[in-house]
C-alpha cells in the first residue's frame, strides 16, 4: 500500500514527472533559442515560471461563465497527465508489469488534458477562447483516429498483446519495433500525433499567440494557469516516454543502459523541437486533411506491412 502510494506520488509518479517535465520544457526552450542564435533561459526557468504563477499572481475569475468548471478543468487535466504518466512509466522502468488492457487506458488518459483545455476554455466565456476550443476539438477529431490506428498497429506487432509490460518484453526479446520498415512509418506518424497533442507549431492553432492570443488559455491567470503550465510540462515528458516505450524498446536503468534511455528521450524531444522550429502554423482544415488522409494512409500501409512481418 505504502509502496503503491510512493509509486503514484514520488518516483515514477507525480513528483518525478513534474521535475523531468520541467527540465524537458527548459531543454525545449533552450534548443529553440540555440536554433535562433540566442542564448536562452536559465536551467530552472520553468520552475520559476510555475512558482511565480502559483504563489505571486492573482487568480482572476471570469464574470460571465462557469467559475467552478473554469477552476476545476486544470485540476482534472493535471490528474489525467499524471495518471497516464504513472501507467506508462511503471511498466517502462520495470517496476510493475501493468494490467491487461492498460495501453487502451493510457490512450484515453492522454486525451483528458486536451479535453479539459476545451472545457476550461468554453467555461471562461471569452469569444477568442471559444475559437481556440473549437479548433482544439477539430484537432482532436483529426488526430485521435490516427493515434488509435497507430496503437492498433503496435498491438498487432506485439502479437495481439494489449499489456504494456508484454509489449516491452516483446521488444527486448527481438529488438525495438522501430527497427523495421513498418516501425519507422509508425514512428513518423506517432511523432506528428505527439506534435498535435502538445499543441506545438505546425498544429498550434488552438493556442496561436499571434492570432487569437493563447486561445484556450486566454482567461487563465495566476494559480489556475500554473496548473495548466504544469500539465503542459508533464505532457512534454509523458508523450516522448510513451513513444520510447512502445516503439523504441522501453527503458532500462541499469549501468550503461541508463545513458541510452536518456539519449532516446532527448532524441525524441530534439526531433519534436526541430519540427516545431522549422515549420509554419497550418490552418485547421489543412491539419485535418493532413491527418485524415495522409497520416491515416501511412498507418494503413504500415498495418499491411505488419501483416507481412516487415
Amino acid at each position, binding site marked *: 500500500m505504502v509502496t503503491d502510494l510512493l509509486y503514484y506520488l514520488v518516483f515514477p509518479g507525480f513528483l518525478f514527472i513534474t521535475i523531468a517535465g520541467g527540465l524537458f520544457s527548459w531543454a525545449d526552450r533552450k534548443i529553440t533559442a540555440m536554433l535562433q*542564435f540566442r542564448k536562452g533561459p536559465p536551467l530552472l526557468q520553468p520552475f520559476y515560471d510555475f*512558482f511565480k504563477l502559483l*504563489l*505571486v499572481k492573482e487568480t482572476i475569475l471570469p464574470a460571465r461563465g462557469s467559475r467552478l468548471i473554469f477552476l476545476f478543468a486544470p485540476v482534472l487535466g493535471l490528474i489525467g497527465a499524471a495518471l497516464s504518466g504513472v501507467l506508462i512509466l511503471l511498466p517502462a522502468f520495470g517496476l510493475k508489469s501493468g494490467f491487461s488492457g492498460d495501453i487502451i487506458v493510457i490512450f484515453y488518459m492522454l486525451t483528458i488534458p486536451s479535453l479539459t483545455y476545451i472545457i476550461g476554455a468554453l467555461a471562461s466565456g471569452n469569444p477568442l477562447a471559444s475559437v481556440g476550443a473549437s479548433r482544439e476539438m477539430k484537432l482532436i477529431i483529426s488526430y485521435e483516429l490516427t493515434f488509435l490506428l497507430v496503437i492498433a498497429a503496435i498491438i498487432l506487432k506485439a502479437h495481439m498483446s494489449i499489456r504494456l509490460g508484454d509489449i516491452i518484453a516483446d521488444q527486448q526479446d527481438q529488438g525495438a519495433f522501430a527497427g523495421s520498415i513498418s516501425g519507422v512509418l509508425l514512428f513518423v506518424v506517432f511523432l506528428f500525433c505527439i506534435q498535435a497533442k502538445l499543441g506545438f507549431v505546425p498544429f498550434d492553432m488552438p493556442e496561436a499567440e*499571434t492570432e487569437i492570443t*493563447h486561445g484556450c*488559455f486566454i482567461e487563465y491567470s495566476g494559480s489556475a*494557469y500554473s496548473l495548466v503550465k504544469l500539465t503542459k510540462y508533464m505532457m512534454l515528458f509523458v508523450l516522448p516516454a510513451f513513444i520510447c516505450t512502445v516503439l523504441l524498446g522501453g527503458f532500462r536503468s541499469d549501468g550503461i543502459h541508463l545513458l541510452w534511455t536518456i539519449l532516446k528521450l532527448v532524441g525524441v524531444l530534439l526531433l519534436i523541437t526541430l519540427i516545431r522550429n522549422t515549420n509554419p502554423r497550418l490552418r485547421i482544415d489543412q491539419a485535418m486533411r493532413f491527418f485524415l488522409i495522409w497520416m491515416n494512409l501511412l498507418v494503413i500501409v504500415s498495418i499491411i506491412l505488419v501483416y507481412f512481418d516487415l
Partner: protein
Amino acid sequence: MGFKEYCFKKSLWIFHFGGASCNNCDIEILDCLTPRYDIERFGMLLVGSIRHADVLLVNGSINKKDKSRLLEIYKQAPKPIIVVAIGACGCTGGIFAEGNTFAGPVDKIIPVDAYIPGCPPKPEAIIAGIVKILNK
C-alpha cells in the same frame, strides 16, 4: 529577498500596449527579443494575453480613445503588475503634449513604476530600465 519575490523577478512576462504610437518604440521593444539582446536570458517572455502578464509596457501618446482601453487593460491585469512607460510620448506626451486629442501622459491615467525616456529609447535603455526596477 524571499522565495516568492525571487521567482517573480526571475520570470517577468511582458505585455505590450501601444497607444497612438509612431511605431518606433514598438520596433525597439521587439528589438529586445532579437538574438542580439535576447531578454529570454532573464526569463522574460512576450505574452499575448494581459491575464498572463507581469509587466505592462505602454508606449505612444495616449489619446482620448486609447485612455479607456488602457484603463480597461490595467483593470484586467492580475496584480502585482509593473507598469513601464516607454519613450518620450509615454513619459510626458512628447510633441503631442499640446494636441487637442491628447489625454494626459500615462502616469495621469494609471500608476507608473518606471519611465524610460528617449525617442525611441535604445534596446539597451529598455533592458536597463527593467533591471533598475528589479533591483529597487
